[in-house]
């Protein structure tokens, strides 16, 4: 088990490294002109030179990548316009547009995104699984059809439409804002409520359907029949035997899904004005802030790889038949 995790962590790190190298080449080494892009339309030759130098664009590509990695591990110094700033490890580069190290920028954004996704995901998982399980139990009845029908309707409304409706009409909700959890948990929750509801509502539709299908399958299994033949209550049959088996595939989807949510909350953040990762990357994109984009890529890749690892480990806890190795 320990060996397995170790091996997975090593492979995870190598995946991230490959991602970094590939994106680095795309952004900086490829025959583009990153310095020119950063410098913008009103660029002076001195400033261009300055940027080229401070980004080490005048050095061979391999050297550039080595320097970048070195920055991540031990930190590095950036000199721009005669001023040298130290960028602590893990240094993901320096944003010329905003004049701050990328790491600081992302470190502020990540908790916001994390808060949005954790809250939203909790809502959609609980809500979706509950409705799905109930629908599976009463399969074929009106209640089931209502549950399936409404999940189809909600699922087919574009996500941003739901977000907009909540933002525009659900004015009774507390004002959307980000307050760090540790400074005031109540304001934290209140400020994120609208975003959570939006994320929870739209995604619960698909979880209703996953859970319902998975539950129907589990309830049709031979072991469910065995459980019934023991003389235990139907509730126990459904929630202990059925749900336990039905949840394994749902959790698998959930894990990967959460990872994608973390990287893709742009809409939610934009609509609800929350300074998260998505918004950061979007802004960087608009401003050609390549170092920030690079940082975003690294964080995104790391999140995906870590979540995959978490799901795999979770799987062995859920299903004793799965042995890591």
């Amino acid at each position, binding site marked *: 088990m320990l*060996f*397995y995790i*170790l*091996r997975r962590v090593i492979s995870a790190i190598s995946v991230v490294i490959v991602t970094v190298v590939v994106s680095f080449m795309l952004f900086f080494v490829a025959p583009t002109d990153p310095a020119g892009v950063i410098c913008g339309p009103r660029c002076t030759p001195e400033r261009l030179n300055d940027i080229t130098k401070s980004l080490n664009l005048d050095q061979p590509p391999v050297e550039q990548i080595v320097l970048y990695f070195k920055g991540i591990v031990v930190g590095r110094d950036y000199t721009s316009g005669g001023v040298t700033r130290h960028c602590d490890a893990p240094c993901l580069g320096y944003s010329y547009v905003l004049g701050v190290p990328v790491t600081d920028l992302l470190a502020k954004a990540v908790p916001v995104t994390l808060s949005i996704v954790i809250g939203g995901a909790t809502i959609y998982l609980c809500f979706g699984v509950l409705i799905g399980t109930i629908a599976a139990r009463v399969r074929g009845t009106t209640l089931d059809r209502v549950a399936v029908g409404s999940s189809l309707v909600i699922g087919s409304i574009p996500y941003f439409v739901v977000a907009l409706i909540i933002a525009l009409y659900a004015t009774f909700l507390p004002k959307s804002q980000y307050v760090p959890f540790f400074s005031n948990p109540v304001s934290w929750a209140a400020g994120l409520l609208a975003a959570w509801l939006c994320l929870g509502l739209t995604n619960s539709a698909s979880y209703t359907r996953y859970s319902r299908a998975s539950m129907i399958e589990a309830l049709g299994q031979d072991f469910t029949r065995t459980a019934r033949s023991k003389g235990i209550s139907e509730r126990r049959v459904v929630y202990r035997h059925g749900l336990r088996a039905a949840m394994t595939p749902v959790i698998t989807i959930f894990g990967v899904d959460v990872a994608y949510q973390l990287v893709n909350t742009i809409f939610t953040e934009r609509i609800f004005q929350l300074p998260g990762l998505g918004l950061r990357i979007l802004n960087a994109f608009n401003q050609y802030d390549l170092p920030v984009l690079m940082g975003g890529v690294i964080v995104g890749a790391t999140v995906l790889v870590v979540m995959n690892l978490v799901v795999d480990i979770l799987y062995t806890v859920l299903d004793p038949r799965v*042995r*890591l*190795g």
Partner: protein
Amino acid sequence: MTAATTTAKSGVRSMEGAPLLELDDVKMHFRTKGDGLLARGTKWVQAVDGVSLTVQSGETLGLVGESGCGKSTTARLITRLLEPTAGKIKYQGVDIAHMSERQLRPYRREIQLIFQDPYSSLNPRHTVGTIVGTALRTHGMVPKSGELKRVQELLEVVGLNPEHYNRYPHEFSGGQRQRIGIARALAARPKIIVADEPVSALDVSIQAQVMNLLENLRSELGIAFVFIAHDLGVVRHFCDRVAVMYLGRVVEEAPRDALYEKPQHPYTQALLSAVPDIAVVRGVPPKQRIRLVGDVPSPVDPPSGCRFRTRCWKAQDICATNDPVLEEKAPDQTVACHFAEPPVESIVAEVV
């Protein structure tokens, strides 16, 4: 090839005087992933471990054994759905064990396979006519114009209504689907059919119908069969010779009557005595039965020496150290056991 080989028009080579099919010390080891860093514990499942068999033209060889004995893997090796780890698979004297897919093509026509599950082996989106017709076309058996006629002929041969060529597999019952599978195998005019549990998914009354069909095909078309089944009654009914497999090896091979009446390997004896026999109610005294303990060991880590020794009541020290080889203990009856001997009493009930 030192002996004279001839090449038929189809591209199938053959050596004069060679048996139709010959397996020579064939091994099939599958790799399983081990655990630990760098997958150090990689293990090999010895699914088939040194099997030698011979099938003459028109002959029927039965392969019996319990789950994990390697009989289905053997079927997939003969039909070259698998490439063996070691050993030779000779068809008319020519080794096909490591032939490329292109070289194999003409041989694929002559060696056909019938599967256990007639439903999952038929494409549900194709009509019966297409399924059988594809087999005809693949092997270039008939010109396009004659295809439908030949399909209908084949359907009739296997006892299906030839008018039903445009129906889909789900419109047929289990027994009828197995007939479709047989028609598909016959389309190529094979010389040998490997039938892997062809009747075990069928109800008793339907099973008998399909058995009779196979029986008729064999006597009319002279096709050789390798017939794989776990049902000893079915094998006895259908086969000229029977090989008993245990954990990837053949432990006994003999002509049908010798095997069922005077089995010499303890495993064969136990296997036969374990079959519930309906003759008991017709006044036949209950037979002495040998009860094996436990289940078949894992083929990943088979016992040393004789693989059956862990469940064998005759086992001695020599069985753990010396692997018994197949030896001829009676005319045409080979047994791999240090203590092979016919049973004291008849294993199967006496004839009424």
